């Protein structure tokens, strides 16, 4: 595997993400409800690439984000198409969009903590926590937790708490002990975390939620590290039998999958590199091969961005996570990443640990 690694096409990527911040085609309607997540990916990607936002851009983007802040101050909705007049709880803040909004604002250097009602947001988050310690996505019309609850929502809740610098003794803090128990109990027999089968994305969410709340130490993560180390895909003469299998593709060499016996996917390069980094075990990734997969296989040389696999079009989510992975892999030309919050590190330097 001495194949040469393609350069990072910084100019193309900047163009791609600037385009994402301008307009998306109507098929993006399916993602309308998480539009702030798309903006978060684009803003943080541009920043990682070293792009300097103009004062005008910062003003426009942050003003746009604040339009998504719900009137009770509890969080952010995903899209203006969901806004209600007069307002009621059918127009709720969601954990995913609130997280995205805070990440965007901190990356733009906005003083959001002076403008937002931290107590209201945290009270809302606390109310979405359910019996088993995890969180649901929103509060419903009756003020009860609603939606799917798993490690993703734990991650979002813990990130929001961190981004708001909410104190552990605050009256509206959620039950961190219970969240910790939930996360630890979601470790599967092979070492990964998941709601059932071990899943690298959910593993990252669980580990990062623990790290964000200073709860990662005190648990032995050896089996998790073992499982994560095995996510990097490698075919050679000693396991070439696997290449007969539908889900094994030799272009995946060096990439990561999210579950055993699955294809490589750009986002898992990040979820795995991020998880290992949270466990101080980054050295167990073959950096060279991991970079090769991203830059030679999923980097789009024509319009910029990264796609999920070699067979897809780029999308903002995979494009950002591709860059985030490269940053963790210490690839030159990218800013350093705050692994826990998945934003550029210089942006989160204003937060205390």
């Amino acid at each position: 595997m001495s194949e040469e690694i393609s350069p990072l096409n910084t100019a193309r990527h900047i163009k791609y993400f600037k385009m994402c911040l301008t307009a998306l085609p109507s098929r993006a309607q399916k993602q309308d409800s998480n539009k702030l997540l798309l903006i978060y990916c684009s803003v943080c990607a541009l920043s990682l690439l070293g792009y300097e936002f103009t004062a005008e851009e910062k003003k426009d983007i942050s003003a746009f984000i604040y339009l998504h802040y719900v009137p009770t101050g509890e969080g952010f909705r995903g899209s203006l198409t969901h806004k209600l007049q007069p307002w009621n709880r059918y127009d709720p803040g969601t954990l995913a969009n609130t997280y995205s909004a805070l990440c965007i604002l901190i990356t733009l250097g906005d003083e959001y903590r002076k403008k937002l009602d931290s107590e209201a947001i945290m009270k809302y988050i606390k109310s979405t926590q359910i019996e088993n310690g995890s969180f649901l996505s929103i509060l419903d019309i009756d003020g009860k937790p609603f939606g799917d609850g798993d490690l993703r929502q734990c991650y979002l809740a813990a990130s929001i708490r961190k981004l708001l610098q909410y104190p552990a003794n605050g009256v509206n803090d959620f039950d961190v002990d219970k969240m910790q128990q939930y996360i630890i109990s979601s470790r599967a027999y092979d070492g990964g975390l998941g709601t059932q089968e071990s899943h690298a994305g959910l593993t990252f969410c669980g580990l990062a939620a623990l790290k964000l709340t200073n709860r990662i130490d005190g648990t032995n993560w050896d089996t998790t590290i073992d499982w994560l180390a095995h996510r990097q895909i490698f075919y050679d003469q000693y396991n070439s039998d696997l290449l007969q299998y539908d889900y094994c593709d030799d272009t995946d060499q060096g990439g990561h999958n999210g579950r055993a016996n699955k294809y490589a996917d750009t986002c898992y390069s990040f979820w795995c590199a991020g998880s290992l980094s949270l466990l101080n075990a980054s050295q167990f990734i073959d950096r060279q091969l991991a970079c090769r997969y991203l830059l030679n296989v999923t980097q789009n040389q024509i319009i910029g961005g990264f796609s999920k696999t070699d067979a897809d079009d780029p999308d903002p989510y995979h494009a950002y996570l591709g860059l985030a992975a490269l940053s963790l892999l210490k690839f030159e030309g990218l800013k350093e990443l705050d692994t826990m919050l998945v934003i550029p590190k210089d942006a989160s330097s204003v937060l205390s640990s």
Partner: protein
Amino acid sequence: MDQFDYSDITPLPLVEPNNPVTTILYSDEYKNIFGHLAALLAAKEYSERAYALTNAAIEQNAAHYTVWQYRFKIVVALGKDLEKELDWLEEIALDNVKNYQIWNYRQLLIKKLELKSMKRELPLLETMLDEDSKNYHVWGYRKWVVSYCGDYSNELAFVNKLIKADVYNNSAWSHRYFAVVNLSQISDFDFDSEVQYVKENINLAPNNYSSWNYLIGIHEYFKKDLTDLEDFVNTHTEDMLDTEVEGVISKPGLELLVKILTLKGEKEKAAKGLDLLASKYDTIRVNYWNYQKSLLSKA
């Protein structure tokens, strides 16, 4: 939206600022549906026409939580037939295989129905997993509904079939673990025949981490000794520590051999196995195997 009269409703207009960010070029249909929906939501109208509108909205964008809870509220308020609602949801599920909310909504309906047997759910789950045998949401829902009904009786036959069709299907192995752990708590469980089953499947695909991990997993869960597997592992790793092999080996088998040797205190042999993994059989993880070796000398 043609079946009902919405003419008395003024759709809420989408007000975007002068300098919007990430403008989605919404179709007129989308704007029309979500404009009307917002008006009905603001008025908290629970009606047949609102019910019809939620269907249209979900077809456009199935990821908006509000539409789902609104639909559920309407179903309850109007006393809709829950069985018919489940049928409707099946069609939506088949069109949106990656969606989370559908399965959450299905849970709400099942709880409302107080479903006691999971028989009703089997055909849908079968079809969905036929289409994508590793669909995480569908497996998650299967696990939920099995637990909810407390009915584990279909699970082993089902995963047998899936593993037979695709021995590498890690979702099926993972579900097997869930089924076996629960079955063993309600009835006698024959550990030895389970181990035999796994061994046969490993023999079909020696580089399959899914089956090897499962084998180790059930040994740990049932507190059995991993060293019991030494003879079996040797059938896959025979002489590898002494004679180097070219061509296909069993990487997970070699890894388990190292574990067993470590447990038996045969450090030198274990170190040899780790050296081989690092330098020859699994070079991408050279740092990991070297690290394991460093732990060996400390132990």
